[in-house]
């Protein structure tokens, strides 16, 4: 589904991704771990097409198409979803308007008619319930005044409504208490299917207790320095990154 090959990227003239190769098949869950500043969010941003991130080498193909050649909204239409490490607050645009606009953009891209108000509300209510969010949170501005945990739940709420094919979730577990982590884990698991794939950026093994990864990668200084199975995540939890990067733990 996703083939990243020797990807190099820079931000503001600074090289951050230094040759990343990664292959994600439909149905798989990949975890990407690594020290702060290693380039995990940069990788996610490049996959979603964030302006200002310049690809200087390599390629990314998604479902056989050149992902890097697509606008961010085209990627979204093709089923790529980025869960933000720091979701953006947009005061003045209500969450419900935003969700509806996003759902309709996806439907239009698929050649389907816009969703009717009743079906939209039904889906929204179900997703809100799954995410343990109150109705009034969709009336508020997008992420406006939300706590860190509420913002993360709102990301998953959007993902449940949009049903992407590839979910790239950047530290979706940071700032979540145990209960919220369960809720978020449940939301992600609900979408797992043989046609969908996920890339989970995380610092913590505990997320992976809820969502079992097929493959675990360690990203350090812009490169993947180790790939393994679940055991690798447990080992990292135990020993830190030092033993892999050559520094003292």
């Amino acid at each position, binding site marked *: 589904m996703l083939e990243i090959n020797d990807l190099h990227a820079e931000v503001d003239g600074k090289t951050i991704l230094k040759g990343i190769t990664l292959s994600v098949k439909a149905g798989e869950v990949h975890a990407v771990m690594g020290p702060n500043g290693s380039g995990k969010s940069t990788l996610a941003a490049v996959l*979603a097409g964030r302006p200002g991130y310049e690809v200087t080498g390599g390629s990314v193909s998604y479902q056989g198409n050149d992902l890097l050649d697509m*606008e961010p*909204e085209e990627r979204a239409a093709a089923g790529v979803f980025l869960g933000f490490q720091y979701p953006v607050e*947009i005061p003045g645009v209500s969450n419900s308007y935003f969700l509806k606009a996003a759902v309709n953009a996806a439907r239009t891209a698929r050649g389907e008619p816009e969703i009717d108000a009743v079906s939209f509300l039904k889906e929204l209510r179900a997703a809100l319930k799954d995410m343990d969010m109150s109705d009034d949170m969709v009336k508020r501005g997008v992420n406006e005044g939300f706590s860190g945990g509420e913002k993360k739940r709102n990301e998953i709420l959007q993902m449940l409504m949009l049903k992407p094919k590839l979910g790239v979730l950047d530290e979706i577990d940071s700032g979540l208490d145990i209960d919220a982590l369960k809720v978020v884990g449940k939301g992600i698991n609900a979408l797992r299917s043989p046609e969908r794939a996920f890339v989970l950026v995380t610092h913590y093994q505990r997320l992976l207790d809820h969502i079992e990864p097929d493959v675990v990668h360690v990203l350090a200084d812009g490169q993947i320095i180790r790939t393994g199975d679940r055991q690798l995540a447990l080992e990292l939890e135990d020993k830190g990154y030092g033993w892999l990067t050559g520094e003292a733990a």
Partner: protein
Amino acid sequence: MSGPANKSVPFVEALNQQDAQDADALATFIDVGLPTKALEAWKQTNLRPVAQQAFALAADGAPAGAWLEAQDASTDTDRIVFINGHFSADASHIGDLPDGVVLAPRSQAQNTTVANLGQRSPGFAALDALNAAFAHDGLVLHVPDNTTLSRPIELIDYANNTSDQAQMAHLRHQIVLGRNTHVQLIERVGGDLASDQLNSAVWTGSLGDNAQLAMSRLGALPDDTGMRLQRIDLTLGRDAKVTVASADLGGKLVRVDTDVALTAPGSEAHVSGIYFADNGGHIDNHTRIEHRAEHTTSRELFRGVAAGKSKAVFNGMVVVEKGAQKTDSDQQTAALLLSDRAQVASKPELEIYADDVKCAHGNSIGQLDEAALFYLRSRGLDEQTARTVLTFSFLNSVLELMPDTDLRSAAARLVRDRMPGGERLQDAEAFAQ
């Protein structure tokens, strides 16, 4: 001090003494002349487009054109319509009013005088005189003590020019609200203009103790022909409260001065506005809040955008006089530049002569937030829609402060119409709740 005035310019030379209602005011205007950029208050707004043309005073009897026809005839308001500065009985309707209330065009009201305002607003003195000289009509509203008007009063100031001649028209309004009164006021400004037209309007109002006035304004003049010079001057008594919420959404040259004097403890001014300059237009908002007594409060919030090759100006003066202790004032302004040819000049000004006061202000000019733009695009909204959504929400959050909900919706529609793809924001009401 006053620099070279526009005295011997086509505008002044074309004035017809015979048309003047007030010879003294005309003499004052001719003596002072149109303000020039040498005056501080007119630094950012050049009146040359006015000075260089001869404007004929618009005659009575102009028809109701497309713009006026399109104003939904709300039955829930007392509507008073002026066409080119002349009262239109046909287009107006006034229902039953509580005892003692005077609501009439000045041409039909008795025993009313309108104060001369020149002294208080040096930047507007000449224009005030011009308005006084030529305005022979306007709204008169007197509300006796302890009276609430249940319906809003809706004033329509309509400009119509089907000729190939530049025209001008003037209105002078007066509001006197007694103690414990409640009044909602709406001002709609628009026009159908084949040629340039200059409309001026001066509002003077006084609010008695504990009176409340909620004023909603919507101005949308054609960007190629509509010119407007407006001043609102309100004086508040003890515990009186005024809200003035404006939306200025078009015009070749629009200048609105909103001045509030808080003369007694407990009085409050809430002044807000949005503007959207485009198509080479020019929109200038000046506010002046005078805290003249202790325990007075003011809140100001202005947001606007300038697109294309347009220019917008905001200047917010807050004066805290000696003795006005415990003044609480806050002024926040923000502007978005939607193109690199657009210009915004925004300036807060504080003059504080008391020491125990709280005066906050914030002023920003910038572009749309790139992070928010990307967030929307990453959820599938195309770039243009994302820009339109963000621009609309930027303005809408201030528009929400407009007391009259019908006027607010009308303003929201006009904002959408000014943006590419804006018609797709159909459920704008659902935007922010």
